[in-house]
């Protein structure tokens, strides 16, 4: 291990905690994390191991149960240090001394090493910048921290990415009004996929039941509780339309929401201050607020997450549909489309002339909601 580590801060017993100390600890912990990653790779891709089926098909060395068990930074220390671990141990030792001092500052003395580590990680998470202005390294760091925190707090292994948009892709969605029967399977699929708060029941998708003939939201209802499909009625689903000119993005005072190159309007949940101006600005009522601390039972958490997508949110921030960014950027379909039993939903790349969505827009009589506002939604309705 030839890396030069920054010198540990002086014993912070008497001194007040300075911002410099925090930055130093941050730098150190980043290095620790990086070394841990290297270590993980050396030990047979332990970090990504849970995603592996264990039969060796993915190329990883299977059958290393010890490596599969994520260990706390501190626990690694307690073992007899050897080789690289030795240097690492010294580092983590200093790190923990630092957290101890921090604990003393906040008068909450964490007992276990895990608590100290958690405290430090949470502290670092509070100081991070807007995702848009982060360097690739910053992004990587915060994602690692969040994965580690999920491990420490809930004992689960996340597979989070901050994958950027693919070139030559702009996503679009089409909704076949003739096919939708109002089963709301899409709503259920969405909640599961996107780690929605189960207690207050936040829903991104609303299916409106309307009486034949005209699209009139004031006469329709999304709160129907009866067997579907109902005679002489049709169903029309709304969600975030990822408008080409999104009014919600303009109004955000801290630029916590923006449009990505593939057209998806995203939110940095940790940068959002919860003023809810974007909720007022959306003409399609697509945004939701976490009025309370969201709750998702641990066994129901979807571990495949995207920083700007379905990662677990906290109270006081705004969220919305992202066309399942964590799936669609990997070439998969959104969960609502997969869940739909009638095939009413068509998703695809608008820039691909051979895509189904392009065929629909070019050959069907399509319409969008509130065209007069000039928002240009990337969500079209059509009938067979």
């Amino acid at each position: 291990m030839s890396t030069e580590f920054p010198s540990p801060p002086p014993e912070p017993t008497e001194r007040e905690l300075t911002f410099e100390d925090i930055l130093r600890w941050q730098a150190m912990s980043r290095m620790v994390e990086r070394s841990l990653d290297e270590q993980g790779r050396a030990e047979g891709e332990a970090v990504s191991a849970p995603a592996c089926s264990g039969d060796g098909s993915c190329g990883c060395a299977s059958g290393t149960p010890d490596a599969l068990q994520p260990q706390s930074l501190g626990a690694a220390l307690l073992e007899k240090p050897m080789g690289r671990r030795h240097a690492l141990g010294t580092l983590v030792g200093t790190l923990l001394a630092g957290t101890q001092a921090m604990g003393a500052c906040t008068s909450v003395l964490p007992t276990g090493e895990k608590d100290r580590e958690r405290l430090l990680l949470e502290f670092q998470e509070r100081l991070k910048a807007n995702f848009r202005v982060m360097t690739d390294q910053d992004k990587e760091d915060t994602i690692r921290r969040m994965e580690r925190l999920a491990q420490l707090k809930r004992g689960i292994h996340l597979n989070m990415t901050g994958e950027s948009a693919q070139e030559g892709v702009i996503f679009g969605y089409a909704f076949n009004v003739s096919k939708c029967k109002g089963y709301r399977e899409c709503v259920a699929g969405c909640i599961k996929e996107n780690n929605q708060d189960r207690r207050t029941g936040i829903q991104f998708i609303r299916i409106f039941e309307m009486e034949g003939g005209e699209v009139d939201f004031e006469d329709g209802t999304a709160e129907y509780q009866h067997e579907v499909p109902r005679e002489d009625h049709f169903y029309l689903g709304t969600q975030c339309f990822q408008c080409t000119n999104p009014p919600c993005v303009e109004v955000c005072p801290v630029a916590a929401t923006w449009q990505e190159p593939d057209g998806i309007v995203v939110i940095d949940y940790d940068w959002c201050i919860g003023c809810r101006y974007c909720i007022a600005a959306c003409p399609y009522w697509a945004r939701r607020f976490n009025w309370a601390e969201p709750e998702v039972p641990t066994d129901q958490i979807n571990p495949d997450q995207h920083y700007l997508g379905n990662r677990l949110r906290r109270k006081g921030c705004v969220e919305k549909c992202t066309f399942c960014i964590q799936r669609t950027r990997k070439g998969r379909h959104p969960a609502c489309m997969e869940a739909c039993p009638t095939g009413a939903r068509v998703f695809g790349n608008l820039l691909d002339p051979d895509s189904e969505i392009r065929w629909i827009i070019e050959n069907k009589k399509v319409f969008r909601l509130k065209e007069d506002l000039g928002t240009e939604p990337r969500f079209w309705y059509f009938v067979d």
Partner: protein
Amino acid sequence: MNHVKAFLLAALDAATNGGRRYHLWMGFLSLVMVVGAYAYSIQLREGLQVTGMTDHVSWGLYISNFTFLVGMAAAAVMLVLPAYVLGDVDFSKAVLIGEGLAVAALIMCLCFVVADLGGPFRSWHLAPGIGFLNFPRSLLAWDVVVLNGYLALNLGIPLYILWSHFMGRKPNPKRYVPFVYLSVFWAVSIHMVTAFLLAGLPARPFWNSSLMGPRFLASAFAAGPAFIILMLTVVKTNTTYHIENVAIDKLAMIATVAAQANLVMIGSEVFKEFYFPTHHGINAQYLFFGLDGHDALVGWIRTSIALNCCATLILMIHPLRKNPKWLITACLVLFVAIWMDKGLGLVIPGFVPSPLGEIVEYRPTWIEFAVTAGIWSVGLFVFTVLVRVALPIEMGETRSPYLPRHLLDHGATVGTDH
């Protein structure tokens, strides 16, 4: 340095000493603040679920009070403009009260915005440099800039004038009059920006009206002077500070004209919404007549308009306006009417029904009422302290004890026991 210390001590002295009624008043305000702080602590812990707000009605009592109070702050310009710029002597004594009102109102505005935030500890994200202020795209970013700037102006100008008096000097007009001009434009801008914050949302046709800005100004210039008249009356009856009756008369005139303009604009809006009702007028229909049996605001807005008309009528009749009793009644009624109209009557109907036609009504919870009362107490507390500190200096009672003797003679006594 000695002077600064003396100034602060004199200020502390003025703020903490007073008669029994003064202490009772401040004690009462403190009590309400404590209750508000307790309610806010619950909100911090549990999240905004403890309020009556929902995804449908995502702004409530807090933002309603915010929009109203921005107007109160802006109304201080109605005193500043004639006093400093036009050199109208009648107003010069009242102007400090106006600026004190602006400061108190702005502090309340900032408190209400923070109380409304889902993540108040992340409000540093708004700070340029360490945060990411979306300026000039977001109107809320504009509001952050103009409100803080206006607060600085309204703290700075009176502080300079009071300091000069405290030091036994005449304030140098070259030093502060440019800022006074600036503050006049700024006052108009804070209210316009706040109106644009709502009017700039095509998603909400109820707010998306070009009349929004002018109506904000008119209602502010009615409610603001009305409140200042009430405060001047309190000061006049409780202290020896002399305020010319002419100043109150002129203020009453301003309030009258503004109230009339405001009524004309209300009429114009009502005509537009109801002569040929469209889908875009559905929010107004909910507000004035109710929709599908939902009519939570109907009584509220009708009361407001009735009070508004009554107050304006009283003010329009010269003998009544000249009579202090009638004037105070009219000012009180006008203030309440505009608070009802510019607060809940403006913000809530923008959300009901939602852009997708769903009707969810809003009812504030006790937590919201307690926090709101607490913030109003903060404002009244600040206002009282500011007036208490400013008046003795303005009257020449308080001077720096370290001044040469000939300057000290100007005042009757030195206010503190140094």
